[in-house]
């Protein structure tokens, strides 16, 4: 536990990827089995433990601390597990903490009714950093800025291998990964990956900057719409189909219909996952209903049907075509799609153009739903992992803005807990049965300002508070915030009847009188 706590502690504050990688590789090289394997499991797919974590923590704390103090502390720290680790009564005397392998064994072999007592015993034997690491270990994702991929890269580095070598066998392995360590340390053969389709790192785009335009030749680029869904990779092989997110997370369980649509194919394809009804892309919100689910109901499948709009092809029938040019891959994609016709898919059409200004006109004239922007892809570029410079560009629409009035402020949590950093704002509407107007909240924003602006806002809020409810303050409605957002959607959950997508504070209009802020009518007009 001690070595694991040390490495997790350092990882949580190390910024650079190389720094993190060095820490992890050192740890995985030196820690014994099965400790390191359980640590690796915690950083990748999670430990195979089923613990009622939240409930146990709150029961344990209720026995040991005052509820008001726990709540105040939790609000300040912004993370329950960390709060528990900090508030837990310190051990009377310093003892050796248990080993990681022991800890996992105890919990794996215990009945659920015994979990709370075991967790308390372990916490009693740990110092503050170890308590934190232990709770992060058993609480699911430790969130120390280490992706599953980085952890796998560290394992690969032990043997000087590329991460793809580990990724190819990963899905055939189980924690605590003794086979894997034995292989990378040269003590045994490569584990048999079987036929599981693996994730291939995706190619990402840079936003196009003003300075880029003069350097871009329209003849060298293909353009396609950027659809407002989520980028995925579908990998299908021998009847097994995986849907991976951009970061390599397996999100297949949430999309069974996509899995069955690809069940007879042998392909790795890149595309946008959307909800499409009668050929029309539904708002992003509809897709969101489908995400983060372990299983889906029939109703969900009927009402929020998933669809894959294809951008690119990486493998067909086991052939790696990533080093072909975009144009060649596009031809392969079109031919493959025309002959195989997989269900629930279509191709993202290329947009023909001669000059960028022509392209901009086309874009402005585009009426189709779900277009978020344009992608410019260099015709000669291969499919490269990560975000290589100069190959792919994304060109987004300028955001919409409205002038809104600040109504409520709330203390942030975690790093911002000493400042008011969450802001609810509203627009004007006529008050029923009178000639006056009232403000109605239309959204909440957390970001979009500098530290200095945050401090100014904080000062304004403290000086203009009319009422305080817990961490929330109501303020005199006199400060105008220029809010930028991606879209306005109708919403039955909001009193105003509208909801903004991705609102953020664009500018603070210290100069503008609140009476001149926008109205609900003007806000409604932006729906669509």
């Amino acid at each position, binding site marked *: 536990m001690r070595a694991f706590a040390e490495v997790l502690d350092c990882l*949580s*504050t*190390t*910024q*650079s990827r190389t*720094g993190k990688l060095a820490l992890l590789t050192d740890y995985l090289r030196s820690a014994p089995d099965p400790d390191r394997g359980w640590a690796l499991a915690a950083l990748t797919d999670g430990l195979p433990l089923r613990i009622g974590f939240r409930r146990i923590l709150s029961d344990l704390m209720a026995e040991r*601390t*005052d509820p*008001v*103090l726990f709540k*105040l*502390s939790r609000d*300040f*720290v*912004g*993370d329950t597990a*960390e*709060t528990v680790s*900090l*508030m837990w009564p*310190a051990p009377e005397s310093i003892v050796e903490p248990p080993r990681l392998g022991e800890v996992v064994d105890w919990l794996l072999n215990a009945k659920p009714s015994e979990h709370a007592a075991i967790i308390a015993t372990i916490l009693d034997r740990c110092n*503050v950093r170890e308590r934190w690491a232990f709770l992060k270990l058993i609480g699911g994702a430790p969130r120390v800025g280490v992706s599953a991929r980085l952890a796998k890269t560290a394992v690969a580095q032990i043997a000087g291998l590329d991460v793809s070598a580990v990724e190819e066998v990963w899905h055939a392995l189980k924690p605590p990964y003794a086979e894997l360590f034995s292989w990378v340390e040269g003590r045994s053969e490569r584990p048999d990956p079987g036929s599981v389709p693996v994730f291939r790192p995706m190619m990402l785009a840079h936003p196009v900057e003003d300075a880029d335009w003069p350097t871009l030749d329209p003849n060298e680029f293909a353009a396609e719409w950027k659809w407002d869904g989520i980028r995925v990779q579908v990998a299908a092989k021998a009847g097994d189909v995986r849907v991976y997110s951009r970061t390599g997370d397996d999100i297949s369980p949430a999309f069974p219909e996509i899995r069955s649509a690809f069940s007879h194919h042998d392909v790795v394809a890149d595309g946008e996952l959307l909800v499409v009804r009668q050929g029309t892309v539904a708002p992003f919100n509809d897709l969101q209903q489908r995400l983060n689910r372990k299983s889906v109901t029939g109703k969900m499948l009927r009402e929020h049907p998933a669809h894959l709009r294809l951008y690119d092809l990486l493998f067909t029938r086991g052939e790696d075509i990533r080093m072909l040019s975009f144009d060649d891959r596009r031809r392969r994609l079109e031919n493959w799609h025309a002959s195989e016709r997989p269900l629930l898919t279509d191709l993202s059409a290329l947009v023909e153009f001669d000059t960028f200004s022509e392209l901009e006109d086309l874009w402005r004239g585009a009426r189709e739903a779900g277009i978020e922007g344009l992608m410019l892809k260099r015709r000669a570029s291969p499919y490269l992992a990560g975000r290589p410079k100069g190959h792919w560009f994304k060109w987004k629409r300028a955001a919409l803005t409205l002038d809104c009035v600040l109504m409520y402020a709330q203390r942030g949590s*975690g*790093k*911002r*807990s*000493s400042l008011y950093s969450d802001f609810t704002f509203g627009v004007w509407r006529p008050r029923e049965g009178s000639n006056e107007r009232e403000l109605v909240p239309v959204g909440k924003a957390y970001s979009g300002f500098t530290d200095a602006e945050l401090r100014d806002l904080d000062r304004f809020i403290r000086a203009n508070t009319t009422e305080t409810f817990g961490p929330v303050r109501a303020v005199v409605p006199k400060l105008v915030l220029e809010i930028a957002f991606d879209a306005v959607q109708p919403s039955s959950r909001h009193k105003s009847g509208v909801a903004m997508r991705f609102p953020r504070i664009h500018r603070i209009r210290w100069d503008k009188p609140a009476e001149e802020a926008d109205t609900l009518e003007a806000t409604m007009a932006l729906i669509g």
Partner: protein
Amino acid sequence: MRPIEHWLYPTPQGLYCEAGDFYIDPPRPVDRALITHGHSDHARSGHAHVLATPETIAIMKVRYGAACAGAFQSAHWGAQQKIGDVTVRFVPAGHILGSAQIVIERGDCRAVISGDYKRASDPTCRPFELVTCDVFVTEATFALPVFRHERGEDEARRLVQSIARNAERTHLLGVYGLGKCQRMIALLRQQGYHDPIWLHGALVGLTALFQDLGIELGDCRPASTATDAELKGALVMCPPSALLDRWSRRMGEDPVRVFASGWMRVRGRARQRGVELPLVVSDHADWPELLNTIVETGAEDVWVTHGREDALVHQLSLMGRRARALDLVGYEDDAE
């Protein structure tokens, strides 16, 4: 004898002692101010008369100039002094050099205004001295049960070890300029670190003052005079605000950013500042120290000022003590 609330009470100008006609740590200029210590939210310029310890007066003169008050009067440590209807004495608070608790007595009632204080050891100032009292005025900067600071010696050792491990990288240590800076230097020297320590311009004047007042800090030099070769693998200290600003770019591609503060107990705070090595060292009392100190003073009434008043007042009421938050303006919850 009138109850204490009638002759010692908060006003918009700060905590006021009517029976002696003076303010304690007033945030705005007043005629007569008693100052607990030199931090800028306690010691301001522009008062007509200032009574403070000699060290605090020296600090105020370095920070604000020799003419920052109409007249200064030194309070000798522990000496009783009559002011109006009360007697006053200054007793060490253990917070920073010169920091004092102000003990005010009238009849058989004794109030202690502790300013900021800590109980942990600090080679740069006199240790906290316990004075039993009826009314104890306490700070609440770290008044949440999550705050338990580490020992300064242990944290200094972690820094020395990190410097030894990273010979190629400059260590950039963010510290508050008055108190924490000099305490960290002294702790590092105790841990056997004797290389030159390079100081950001904002830290030079006060550090020199500490040395003039007889505190051993070893070889400290202005960072502006260092060559790039000298900075490699060296320790550079700066105010927290400089940790991420343009100035820090001089410290090589990838300096190890270190921050010594009680706030570093909470990971989010460390990440917010891009701190790679958070050191949980504070010049304020942590939660157990606050509670123990209050109990030891035997005070029946506890008045709580700047910081997390809500949590401390709640805890004291659980402990059966009369506690209330003094809503004093002008103090920073967040500063050290």
